[in-house]
């Protein structure tokens, strides 16, 4: 059922055409977002819907009835408006302000205030969480609270349609999320239809069922956020560089804005020279002069992350901790590492046996740092045969540093390439899974981090046969092999 049908609506202020042939429909209970840069006609469109401006051409039909035929009062019983800016009237209390929302429901010259009016006002104030402030003057409230008062007034109108112009404009992020969550709830529970202008494309994408994108008064796109949020489209509408990402938990796209101008990262010499290597009593710390984008399975800083510190920490053989992550964070903090920018790994292998391999390509360089132990060597193909999990000491930690720009696909391929190289090294060193007596492919607690400077040459891929893949494969293989030998030697000598 279409609550709202907007057909070929155009609007001009004097000679200035602000809206051109805008057509769309809104269904009941839908959250319909309007997006567009400043001056794209969003607010004019909303003003036409709220009857604040007269329709010049085209038609707006509400539940099958032309908007024109509604009196201002009738329309106020159907639709409530929350504008971007409302004059704060001096001295009115929250309650008095919200009570004005009942205006359209009252009739006669001196109408009586009914129980229903009172109840509607009370509920509206409760809904926005201002019950404790009913008697407070609205000029004493904060911007966000005041916006909630006006929202309560809109709710007191008991509308079927809510028209919002940047509803969260004066709010901090907590209040924004709270309000928007509430709007979603109302839309679903009360079948309240919401048409709202948004500034923030991510908020719009997250909360709207459908979006209308306007540019210079024309509809550029209409559809679900998933369909609309294309970087190219946003680039042309907003003239801003964006890149599309997946939302961590909701199946909605998330757009990241890119800066037009990046600070050039000072490059002194080769990749290795931009790091400082510190060996401490129980850890190796590699510190970069500029942050690197890292994809890792490390205990600290897993997933994609920007980091400047890479720590491989040696723990005692009997290290046993319920919450290794928290303990590791304490450890890092104690040693002065910035936890949010640190990739932290653990090993029981002696860190003195760490191996570095360096390769300088034509346009890039790759550096692999590996510590290896094989106490937990496992053959991935046969692991299903293991009945229980008996964790002994021994793990392979790999860090790969790359000078270049990697796409997300290249990161994943770099991980694959490095893993394959590691497995080959284990095979060549004849490392056996002691349970199954087959060649091991790795250990049960291996860890990897691929870090790239994201400056210089772009690498769309890092598969085994690409130049970058070749360098990763070789360095990781050599380093792992050498690390395994050192590990064996130390075991034999002790």
């Amino acid at each position, binding site marked *: 059922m279409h609550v709202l049908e907007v057909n070929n609506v155009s609007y001009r202020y004097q000679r200035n055409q602000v809206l051109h042939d805008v057509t769309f429909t809104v269904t009941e209970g839908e959250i319909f977002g309007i997006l567009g840069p400043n001056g794209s006609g969003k607010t004019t469109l909303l003003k036409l819907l*709220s*009857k*604040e401006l007269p329709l010049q051409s085209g038609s707006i039909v509400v539940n099958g009835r032309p908007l024109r035929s509604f*009196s*201002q*009062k*009738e*329309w*106020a*019983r159907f639709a*409530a*408006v929350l*504008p971007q800016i*409302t*004059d704060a*009237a*001096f*001295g*009115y*209390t929250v309650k*008095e*302000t919200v009570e*004005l*929302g009942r*205006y*359209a429901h*009252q009739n006669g*010259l*001196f109408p009586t205030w009914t129980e229903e009016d009172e109840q509607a006002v009370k509920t509206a104030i409760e809904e926005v969480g201002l019950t404790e402030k009913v008697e407070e003057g609205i000029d004493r409230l904060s911007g966000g609270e005041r916006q909630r008062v*006006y929202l309560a*007034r*809109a709710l007191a*109108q008991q509308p079927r349609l809510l028209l919002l112009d940047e509803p969260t404009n004066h709010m901090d992020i907590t209040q924004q999320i709270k309000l928007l969550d509430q709007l979603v709830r109302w839309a679903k529970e009360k079948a309240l239809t919401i048409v709202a202008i948004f500034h923030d494309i991510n908020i719009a994408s997250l909360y709207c069922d459908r979006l209308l994108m306007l540019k210079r008064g024309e509809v550029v796109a209409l559809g679900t956020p998933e369909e609309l949020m294309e970087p190219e489209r946003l680039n042309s509408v907003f003239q801003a560089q964006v890149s599309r990402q997946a939302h961590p938990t909701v199946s909605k796209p998330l757009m990241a804005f890119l800066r037009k101008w990046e600070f050039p990262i000072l490059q002194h010499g080769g990749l290795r020279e931009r790091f400082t290597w510190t060996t401490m009593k129980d850890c190796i710390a590699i510190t970069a002069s500029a942050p690197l984008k890292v994809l890792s399975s490390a205990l600290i800083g897993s997933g994609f992350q920007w980091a400047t510190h890479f720590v491989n920490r040696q723990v005692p053989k009997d290290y046993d901790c319920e919450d290794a992550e928290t303990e590791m964070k304490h450890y890092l903090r104690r040693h002065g590492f910035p936890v949010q920018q640190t990739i932290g790994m653990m090993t029981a292998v002696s860190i003195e046996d760490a191996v570095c391999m360096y390769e300088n390509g034509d346009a890039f360089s790759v550096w692999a740092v590996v510590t290896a132990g094989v106490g937990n060597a496992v053959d991935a193909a046969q692991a299903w045969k293991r009945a229980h999990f008996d964790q002994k000491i021994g793990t392979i930690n790999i860090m790969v540093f790359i000078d270049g720009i990697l796409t997300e696909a290249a990161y994943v391929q770099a991980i694959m390439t490095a893993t394959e190289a590691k497995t080959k090294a284990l095979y060549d060193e004849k490392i056996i899974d002691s349970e199954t007596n087959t060649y091991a492919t790795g250990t049960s607690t291996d860890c990897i981090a691929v870090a790239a400077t994201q400056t210089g040459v772009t690498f769309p891929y890092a598969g085994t046969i690409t130049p970058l893949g070749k360098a990763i494969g070789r360095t990781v293989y050599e380093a792992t092999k050498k690390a395994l030998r050192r590990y064996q030697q130390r075991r034999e000598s002790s």
Partner: protein
Amino acid sequence: MYAVAITVVIISLLLGISIGSLSIPFSAIIKIFLSKSFGVTLPDDIPSDFVQIVMAIRLPRVVLAFFVGASLAVAGAAFQGLLKNALADPYTLGVSSGASVGAVFVIFFGIQLPLFGTFTLPIVSIVFGLATLVLVLLFTRAVERKMSVETIILVGIMFGAFFSALISLMIALTGEELRQIIAWLMGSVAMRGWKYTMMLLPFFLVGVMLLLFNARELNAFAFGEAAAMHIGVDVAKRKVMVLTGASLLTGAAVSVSGTIGFVGLVVPHMVRLVCGPNYRLLLPLSLLYGGAFLVLTDLLARTIISPRELPIGVITSLIGAPLFALLFFRRMRRKT
């Protein structure tokens, strides 16, 4: 709230009747009222000239002062609300200037219309006032169909300035009538009799009704015209109703008593300080306090350097201006 206001009104009326060149005790006033309205026999100890003074001189004067003060204060409150401007008063729209032009015109040319006799002045004046209102509204509408508040204020100031210039012109050209014109301009409720009150009354009733019917709309206007529209107020219609009501009150008050300043500006502000901005309270309370205020200032005007009388407009301004300055000062201090 109303009880307090009504008490203040009754006391000020009694004071207004009681005090003068001949003091009349409250008890005597009440006895005279009782005898006049319920036919209770008047005790012998009250001299008959008391009755004469109360009924023929002081009562009509006090009642007229009350209605004029009430009209100006209610109109002022309505203008301030509608125009969203704390500095608005009944004279903002230029209606009073129009009415003044009419009055000065009558004095300047010494006109007497055949049927109306001495009422020529108030009648011409109110006609001029109403004509000004219509002109201002039509002109505003012609400038901008929406009739936004800013346009109304500008057009009002424009008309006001033009009419003031006309008045100045007539003053400059006048000879003997100068004193009379100045005296009228400064305002007075003296020696008007019941007929002036009767003339004011219908406009007063219609104007007050129009405004009271629109008290909720005035509350909505306080949040801006867009907000008023959003909650369902028919903005254009209501605006014209409020403007008409307030202008009727102003025009009528000016035509019977001249331009008495500051009542319409200061009284609503003082009432706001006590009872808040809600027009459903503010309008009736401004009416009551405005009336009482003018009765008392009139009392001061005629007693302070008795037997001479000061123009009432001077007293209201003398009290009003410092009061307003204080309010303004406090308001600005609160803002910063």
